[in-house]
């Protein structure tokens, strides 16, 4: 944990100051904004993935795999289709943001209804449901894309790639506020999460109001996913990578260890990817491509040895 913290701090300093010419008027504030976006986004991705995995009792499910981000993209595509290029103006900075949060919470209800009620599904089924949902919603999005003009498409594409460049200070402030509120609300569930990892029955007999907590946590996850996708874009398989790396690195599986570690790993990944884009690849690739390449490969490896972990 300490090592991760020091590593992140070193990377951050490197990111903010190297090649900045110590320009405090523009470059450094701009970079600090990006850094803050990475931190807030990293926290949102780390928390939402690990908590979702605990609730689902499954280590290859994350909100992204279950179609949360696909829903976000569909919403954006629809907004662009209905409101045109003016959608950015009409909804403003946080109109869109609030709409995303509402959409995510609504989608959470669907997921809750399908996956967490009724008989327990075996480990593979939710994964299948999630991937199919992602695909179906993705197809809808493509369908909508065909109906919009190239200018509108350019706006839409801005939403569908990970990027720290489009972060606006106002949106950042809102996101930070939401993440802080979620952390505060969730901190009371920290002890409960460890018990929930034992499964519904054991948690219930230890006095955890399981259904109520699942609902609460899914709601909080929805807010986190809305924050991270609208702030930095869809993270796809990154959550799985972050969560599993956190389990592997932590000596304990208590959530008070894995959650902060997962957040640090996510922030670290963003920093490394951004630095590589800037200094190694010289902007010839994007953060999204790098992260998806690394995490997609990891997801494939995990799926192949699915039997061992499920």
């Amino acid at each position, binding site marked *: 944990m300490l090592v991760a913290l020091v590593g992140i701090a070193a990377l951050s300093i490197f990111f903010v100051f190297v090649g900045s010419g110590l320009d405090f008027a523009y470059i450094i504030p701009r970079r600090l904004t990006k850094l803050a976006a990475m931190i807030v986004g990293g926290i949102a991705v780390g928390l939402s993935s690990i908590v979702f995995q605990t609730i689902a009792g499954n280590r290859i499910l994350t909100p992204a795999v279950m179609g949360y981000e696909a829903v976000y993209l569909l919403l954006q595509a629809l907004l662009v289709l209905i409101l045109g290029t003016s959608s950015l103006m009409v909804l403003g900075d946080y109109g869109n943001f609030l709409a995303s949060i509402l959409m995510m919470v609504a989608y959470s209800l669907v997921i809750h209804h399908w996956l967490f009620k009724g008989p327990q599904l075996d480990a593979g089924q939710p994964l299948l449901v999630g991937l199919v949902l992602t695909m179906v919603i993705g197809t809808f999005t493509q369908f909508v894309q065909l109906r919009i003009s190239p200018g509108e498409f350019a706006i839409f594409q801005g939403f569908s790639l990970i990027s720290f460049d489009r972060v606006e200070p106002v949106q950042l402030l809102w996101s930070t506020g939401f993440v802080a509120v979620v952390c505060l609300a969730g901190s009371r569930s920290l002890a409960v999460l460890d018990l929930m990892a*034992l499964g519904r029955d054991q948690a219930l007999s230890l006095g955890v109001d399981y259904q109520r907590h699942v609902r609460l946590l899914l709601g909080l996850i929805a807010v986190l996913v809305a924050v991270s996708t609208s702030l930095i874009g869809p993270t796809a398989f990154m959550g799985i990578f972050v969560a599993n790396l956190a389990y592997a690195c932590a000596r304990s599986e208590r959530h008070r260890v894995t959650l902060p570690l997962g957040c640090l790993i996510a922030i670290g990944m963003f920093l490394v990817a951004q630095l590589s884009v800037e200094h190694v690849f010289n902007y010839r690739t994007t953060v999204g491509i790098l992260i998806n390449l690394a995490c997609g490969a990891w997801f494939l490896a995990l799926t192949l040895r699915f039997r061992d972990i499920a």
Partner: protein
Amino acid sequence: MIKVTALAKSYGNRPILSDVRAEFSSGHLTSLIGPNGAGKSTLLMLIARLLAPTSGIITIDGTDIASLAVGDYAKRVATLRQRPDCNMRLSVEELVTFGRFPHSRGRLTAEDRGAVNEAIAFLSLEPLRNALIDEISGGQRQMAFLAMTIAQETQCLLLDEPLNNLDMKHAVQIMQALRTLCDELGRTVIAVIHDINFAANYSDHIVAMKDGAVHAAGSVSEVVTESGLGELYGLDLEIVERQQGCLCNYFTQKGKTR
């Protein structure tokens, strides 16, 4: 005392339990026995509130269990499920500490630590205190989970096949521990037990179930009879009384011996 009245549970049109009536007296060890699919585990899960009954009432000391809050119920009744699946990297001590959750809600007091230490000592798990539960044997893990349930310090313990997949020594250890819980600490234990010999030699009462209903209930000597068990399981069996206890021999069947 736990009292079950006119309890029924069905999935869709398929009844699992119908009109179950039973009483489980305080401070005693009651075994639920019967063939597979008789509804023993379902009955236990209904008492544990892990399943909701289709109809009927379960009371604990006169209070309807459905009226108690989840957190309060966990202070009165602890449940250990069959094959607790847990792939978490937890030490035995951490697991046992989970048993204190109903009391501490995650903030441990000196009293909680005392209860954890007692539970660990009670099952002689001291050498395994810091071992990880995914690295110890199945029997040891079962003991660790039982210790968690004991640390919960509830009046009543519900155990679903606590002897499943255990070797003889661990099985005897667990049954002796359950006996001590009843005799010295006055706890009520209800356990689903498949091994009729363990049930007969360690229980105070036996509730025998068949086809989703109570087939027979009473003290061991009332239920464990050649005719009664023969009817329950559909087997010929012979009960041999020895000084150390009784032994049900059902391994060979009349006319079909080697």
